[in-house]
């Protein structure tokens, strides 16, 4: 389903050490990407509480991106592994709420991957445009 003129709204939880720095690098390198994403800085991807994700869908976001350091590179040794494990469970929970798998995305983006960050956002916006608005959107239910 491709909804005409639909602009998905994405919230990204990015870790301070890798993915937030990657977003900064995309900036200093002036690599453009769609403005649909809003970034929240967290210290570690392992800090992202499932409650944040649920809140994001409740607040009307169409997609949630959690981005951290590559496995093995976590500033706190294993925060990203914890995030990965937790997200598997969370995905099942979201599924029961009628939210498609694609709405929650996990990416490892290092501080050197500015263009990788921009590419991820471009691709994700395209994907969510195909998918249409989140079934949890308040205005969508009207």
């Amino acid at each position: 389903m491709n909804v005409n003129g639909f602009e998905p709204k994405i919230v990204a939880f990015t870790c301070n050490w890798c993915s937030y720095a990657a977003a900064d690098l995309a900036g200093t390198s002036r690599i453009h990407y769609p403005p649909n994403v809003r970034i929240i800085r967290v210290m570690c991807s392992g800090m992202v509480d499932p409650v944040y994700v649920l809140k994001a869908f409740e607040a009307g976001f169409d997609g949630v991106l959690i981005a951290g350091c590559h496995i093995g590179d976590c500033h706190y040794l294993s925060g990203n592994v914890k995030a990965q494990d937790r997200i598997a469970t969370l995905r099942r929970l979201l599924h029961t709420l009628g939210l498609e798998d694609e709405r929650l995305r996990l990416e490892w983006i290092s501080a050197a991957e500015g263009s990788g960050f921009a590419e991820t956002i471009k691709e994700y916006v395209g994907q969510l445009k195909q998918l249409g608005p989140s079934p949890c959107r308040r205005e969508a239910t009207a």
Partner: protein
Amino acid sequence: MAESKNDVKIGVYVCHCGSNIAGTVDVEDLTAFAQEQGSVAVARNYKFMCSEPGQALIKKDIEELGLNRVVVASCSPRMHEPTFRRVCEDANLNPYQLDMCNIREQCSWVHKNGATAKAKALVSAAIARAFYLEALETREVPVTSAVLVVGGGIAGIQAALKVADGGRKVYLVEREPSIGGHMIQLDKTFPTLDCSACISTPKMAAVKSHPDIELMTYSEVVDVQGFVGNFRVTIRRKPRYVDESLCTGCGICQEKCPWKAESEFDCGLGQRKAIYTPFPQAVPNVPVIDPEHCVYILKDGKCGACLKFCERGAVDFSQTEKMVEIEVGAIIVATGYDLMDPSAITRLGYKRFPNVITSLEFERLCSATGPTGGHITVNGKEPKSVAIIHCVGSRDEKYHTYCSRVCCMYALKFAHLIGEKIEGAQVYQFYIDMRCYGKGFEDFYQRASSEGVTFVRGRPAQVTDFAMSPEEKGKLVVVCENTLLGRPMRVPVDMVILCPAMEARADAKEVARLFNLSQSADGFLLERHAKLEPVATANDGVFIVGCVQGPKDIPDTVAQALAGAAEALSLIDRGSVKLEAATATVNEALCHGCGRCEEICEFHAPMVRLNGRLIPVSSINEALCKGCGACAVACPTGAISIRHFTLQQILAEVEALSGVPV
């Protein structure tokens, strides 16, 4: 002192950053938007908020309007959060009551349309978060007054000497049997043609004799624990099989040892013994026994020549690997670079033709301490014509896209040295662009050019021994398109020198993990800020100097080494260090003492104890807590939260971000 909701007074400061932000984001509209948000007492914009007048503007408002929260919408917090935290502190506002809103790197620089709408969303989120920010106390802990320098090349040597000259204890750890690094392998150094050994051996000797430097060669760092100012480092000391305290460096063992191996120091062009010092000026001047070539070790005591001849009884086969633990306040990583192995580029013939050599091999051939005593010969023959091929693996999308920065200059140096040593020799430089950017470099380029060197602009397609004319017989032929003449050419020569890329060490990833650092896309280690913090890293208290950060020449390496020494000294000489206050905290009323936090924490910060109560409760050791938040998410009752990243703060951000349409 509880603060009521009506007491919150937020000041919002929108920075134009010249035209960096204001060129894309409508800063007036954004300021007006901020002014309308709840609890915002004042919203202003200014050309450069980080400048002195910008800072004064914020301080004045805090003092006169009684602001108790500040939101600065400008660049990344990774750039200027410390600046604006200081501004708050100067005006007696707790620095943790500041929130930075990134509308430059993550908005104006990456969007055109929709940038103002996104900036509004980001500002509203920062305001929402600021509302819930709490004043936090920073902890101050003492600093260990010692520095670890890893790597004993010219970078590590300079850094160690400078710190030690400041009267501080230095541990210098080097993996190889001697310090000296790549620099001691070089013959002359550009552009001044100083003899490399003459300028580096006195430094090496100074390291050995310095009362404040503890030198550990043939050793490697295997574990790093702790945090800025308080690192605990474990070092593995490999067995030398020679007692450093007894050995006088007389060399009789090396003379008598019957077993030979290729000399690593001479790039395999010469030989060394199984018991050896890599080169005569080695520091320490104590040999090591190579267990892969020593017959006494390989065949259970079947030789022992060194044992017999050592009058001091310094040879000791009973030595085993030892682990040493040290405590330091700062770490300087100076582990250098690897020279790329050009045999991967098969068309250039390295390893196929003995007279195709690398630049480092040429340095050894040229050096008076080298395998030929400084005579430029291959198989006993002096070349009458030499081709030098630049950018082998550098500026090449198939290998490394970066420029290795030193090759143009040493290629010119080679031409000069060949001219000096071989009468009438013809030298060809195959280059893409001549990059002679440093002090004195252009003069050297002009000088080398006037010495009869032929410059050919073009990247050679092939080095072959296939002769197409009588004058190519028995020669190597460099096949190339001369891009200035626009025509192909074949140049017959007696020797080809390749200038391979300087690349990140093969184990750079392991080094990055060991010291909790990041790598750039090219594999070298990443500095905190390319311009303003060139030797600091994302890990406080760990500094990177020299080629571990990227290819550079000796002057730049030395400058970085001294910068690293200054960073380390300024850190340890403060005596104490302020630690991040954003750590975990336990609400005892909610804690059931289940111990999930204890299980999940990598740093052993939470501890579940009875503490005189009926059920056990968790408490956090703040000196160990890194604020990663793993325990807070794992806690089933929500008893643990992370200061400065509380549930309330983040949920407020999410809610506010969703409020502004895309």
